[in-house]
């Protein structure tokens, strides 16, 4: 992707964030942080990353420890509190970047191959198994959408893609997948291509997806508005988003 395409993917991710959301951001996902801060700057809400909430721009400060954040955040949050906010659905959304995602939206961040003797053991899913069930909305993203990371069935279900419902408690599960090729949303449990990017076609996405896809009326993702682009540049002037997405 070119830097302009990276920006369009990040802006597309940000549009998945509901107005006024409280977004949790996990380790090692700077694109998710940029997209979350962009959405909450433009449409309200809060962002919690690394136990630090709503850091003043630019987002580089988020990565510098207390030396960088004292004076620029309204508070620090213990990890138990952060997970309690997930279980009580005070936190409402998170982006996750899996190693694999399948047609049911299941996420694998754990391992490839046999469970007991995997061919590749990843460092681990952190809260993937938790937040896919606890938060009202989870959106997955892939910097490089390929058949191999979108199989019919993941090798291991670290986090379920299914929506769950209990008394007074609803979770959409994995609601959408944003990639370098487009946007897939789960509608009534069916993965549906809803957006392509200006540099891709519906057929490109179908050809690059290992699971079956419903394709109907996919639109082209809108280019960043002037407000989105200028806010994006204020948030991330040193383009940390490129670390994950630029290829």
């Amino acid at each position, binding site marked *: 992707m070119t830097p302009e395409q990276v920006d369009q993917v990040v802006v597309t991710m940000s549009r998945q964030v509901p107005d006024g959301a409280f977004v949790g951001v996990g*380790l*090692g996902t700077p694109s998710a942080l940029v997209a979350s801060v962009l959405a909450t700057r433009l449409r309200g809400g809060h962002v919690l990353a*690394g*136990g*630090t909430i709503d850091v003043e721009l630019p987002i580089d400060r988020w990565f510098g*420890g*207390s030396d960088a*954040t004292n004076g620029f955040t309204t508070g*620090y*949050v*213990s*990890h*138990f*509190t952060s*997970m309690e906010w*997930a*279980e009580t659905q005070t936190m409402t959304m998170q982006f996750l970047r899996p190693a694999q995602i399948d047609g049911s939206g299941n996420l694998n961040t*754990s*391992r490839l191959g046999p*469970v*007991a*003797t*995997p*061919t*590749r*053991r990843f*460092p*681990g*899913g*952190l*809260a*993937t*198994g*938790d937040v*896919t*069930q*606890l938060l009202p909305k989870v959106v997955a993203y892939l910097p490089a959408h390929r058949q191999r990371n979108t199989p019919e069935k993941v090798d*291991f*279900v*670290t*986090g*379920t893609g*299914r929506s*769950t419902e*209990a*008394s*007074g*408690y609803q979770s959409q599960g994995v609601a959408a997948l944003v990639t370098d090729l487009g946007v897939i949303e789960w509608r009534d449990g069916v993965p549906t291509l809803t957006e392509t990017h200006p540099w891709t076609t519906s057929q490109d996405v179908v050809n690059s997806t290992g699971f079956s896809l419903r394709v109907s009326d996919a639109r082209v993702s809108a280019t960043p508005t002037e407000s989105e682009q200028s806010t994006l540049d204020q948030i991330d002037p040193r383009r940390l988003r490129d670390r994950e997405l630029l290829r």
Partner: protein
Amino acid sequence: MNSKLMALEEAAGLVTPGQTIGIAGSITTLKPIALVETIATAGLSDLQLVSFTGSLGIDILVGSGAVASVAAAYVGLGHFGRAPHFVAAAESGAIEDLEYSEWLMLQRIRAAAMGVPFIPTRAATESQLLELHNFRRITDPYSGDELIALPAWHLDVALLHAWRASADGHIQFAGPPDHLWDIDVAMARAADTVIVSVDEVVELDVIRQRPDLTQLFPVDVDAVIEQPGGSWPTSSRPGYDEDADALRAYAASGVLTR
């Protein structure tokens, strides 16, 4: 004052084969590496390691051959790379690889710290991670919802590194966001024996000047070791940052070189 000061080797000698050992700290922050290195040379076996976000501590002990199982929500060296000995042992099946989600692990530790037999949760009920564990499902007697009952996890030993302590066991951390102190505190309170290395032992008068930083108390702590740089190459604020060169070299070689 009842001093709990011990030498590194004496404290490491509190660990015996087959025990469940919690390793505190988070990835490249406040890992009790000097303690781990001493334990790794003690000829122990069948240790069952528990770490929330594990890294060098797990990897050194797995590399020493002392480990039977690893329970963690993450094992790696962050952006420095993978944990080489852990990955090799997990992929070959040489250790029992008990992967956890964050909340499944933390609630088990917290149940032990709270003194309750289990904590129910809605988290991860559909995750395949549950196949790796023997958790039982329960029905909420009030709503009828199905939940998982996470059993209290009593650890034999917890190994921590902190900024400073008094000799009697008041432990002070620099605090957030430089350290996930609450998890380490819960892990200590879930353990029978708590061993804490610190960069500096100070008088109680110094502890009293910043009582807001005291997170563990003499009733929680069994051994205090003064070990300046004891979490190197991971960081210990405010004293020192992570040693990026040493961590990068370890990820590539599996050897910690000073």
